[in-house]
């Protein structure tokens, strides 16, 4: 077999594995959220379909696919159809640069975990999450409904504001590593995760990630009791499903990123093959934290949301850049060996 064919096969296998696993995980993320949320509210949650309700995602999928696809009369058809694809697509693409495991050697090739080991991975992620805003804004605008429009506007405003804090909170990570490459960032954390060097950065990142994925204290774009369902009010069937799945993949991806940037990625005690498990375990914990937050906190008011983002998170993130930078210079911190 020629070199290029092997590389092609490896990439293809990685792609299909990631696509399959992320989509399945997203489906089970929905179930996990419903279950955990239910337990926190002294209920059982879905437990009728299959043992412990484990087939519930399948039932949901069948339901979503077989539902009627409604196109509102006022809608801008092309944009209306593209918007959910943008949301789900950008989120799925983000996962292509996440190093979710250590390097493995297959047939004489060292296979790194991410599909592409991009040297500007961090920028790629930030760019994609900015693109994702288009999905929200366009969905809100093209539906031709006031609730959708309001949800879209809120969504884009919120995501743009919190993206700033998110980007700034990653700056110390990049400073400590000296690279935009996610594999390098993980490698730099082989001794100690970056949360030790920059706990404030982790906190800001976690909060802005919750806002980025429109999770509960920041779920204004889809605030049920004001905006019906926000930007995806008019969507039905699998188009709504795409938004829904996209949202949950987003949670998984952002949890994975939090792990990559601050919690040491796939590093952990034990043999090398445990790296996948460690990554999954850490990401699952962050995802659980998001669910936990949803059970705990009420929704922000819109002005509170904006004030919190611009007056607290952005200055905090900026201060963190300076503090971590100063400390790193003083003590000669440099991630890795």
């Amino acid at each position, binding site marked *: 077999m020629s070199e290029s064919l092997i590389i092609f096969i490896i990439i293809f296998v990685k792609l299909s594995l990631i696509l399959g696993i992320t989509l399945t995980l997203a489906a089970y993320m929905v179930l996990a959220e419903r279950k*955990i949320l*239910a*337990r*926190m*509210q*002294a*209920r*059982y949650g879905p437990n009728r379909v299959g043992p412990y309700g484990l087939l519930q995602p399948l039932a949901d999928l069948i339901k979503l696919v077989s539902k009627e696809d409604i196109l509102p009369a006022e809608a801008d058809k092309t944009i209306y159809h593209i918007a959910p694809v943008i949301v789900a697509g950008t989120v799925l693409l983000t996962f292509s640069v996440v190093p979710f495991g250590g390097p493995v050697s297959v047939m004489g090739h060292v296979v790194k975990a991410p599909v592409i080991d991009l040297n500007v991975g961090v920028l790629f992620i930030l760019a994609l999450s900015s693109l994702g805003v288009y999905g929200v804004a366009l969905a809100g605008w093209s539906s031709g409904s006031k609730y959708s429009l309001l949800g879209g506007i809120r969504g884009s405003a919120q995501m743009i504001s919190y993206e700033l804090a998110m980007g700034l909170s990653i700056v110390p990570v990049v400073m400590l590593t000296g690279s935009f490459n996610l594999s390098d960032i993980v490698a730099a954390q082989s001794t100690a995760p970056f949360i030790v060097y920059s706990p404030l950065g982790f906190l800001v990142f976690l909060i802005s990630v919750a806002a980025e994925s429109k999770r509960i204290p920041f779920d204004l774009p889809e605030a049920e009791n004001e905006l019906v369902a926000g930007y995806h009010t008019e969507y039905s069937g699998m188009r709504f499903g795409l938004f829904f799945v996209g949202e949950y993949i987003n949670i998984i991806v952002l949890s994975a990123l939090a792990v990559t940037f601050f919690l040491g990625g796939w590093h952990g005690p034990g043999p090398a093959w445990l790296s996948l498990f460690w990554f999954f375990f850490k990401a699952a914990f962050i995802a659980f934290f998001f669910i*936990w*937050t949803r*059970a*705990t*906190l009420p929704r922000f008011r819109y002005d509170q949301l904006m004030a919190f983002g611009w007056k607290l998170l952005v200055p905090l993130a900026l201060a963190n850049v300076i503090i971590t930078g100063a400390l790193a210079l003083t003590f000669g911190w440099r991630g890795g060996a």
Partner: protein
Amino acid sequence: MTEFIVGLIDAFSVTLRQMFRRPATVQYPEEKRTLPPRYKARITLTRDPDGGERCVACYLCSAVCPVSCISMESAEGPDGRRYAKWFRINFSRCIFCGMCEEACPTLAIQLTPDYEFCKYDVLDLCYEKEDLLINSEGKYEGYNFYRHAGVGVVNPKGKNDDEYRPVDLKGNMP
């Protein structure tokens, strides 16, 4: 600020603790609650200890029913005993408020804890008298209206246990 942080930690610990609590849900079809005897569900017409119908077709339940789901026609037997010629409750309308039971002067109409009587056809929810009558005294045992009523049905007039003799209107004695 400290207040804010303490409040946050407090809130998170509450939800985490709740997660390990036993859910309050009753898994209905497999697991059923034992309902109190006065639970308000399927309406029945009970019988007195002697086996006769208690209902005297006074229309009070029908009058008090807020959704007008009870209808009947009264009749009188040769011994002066009143009864319902037909008695119908439309359970598709009934809201199980129990006001008919409260209004009933003879303890005839009673609600039971049997709440599982769904039907595929709405008309099947129209219960006629023979569907409503049960061979039981329900919640109140040993009560027979006509043993206290001052109407000579079970015993001649004035011969019931808690009754005086009828006043002799033409006599002089008090």
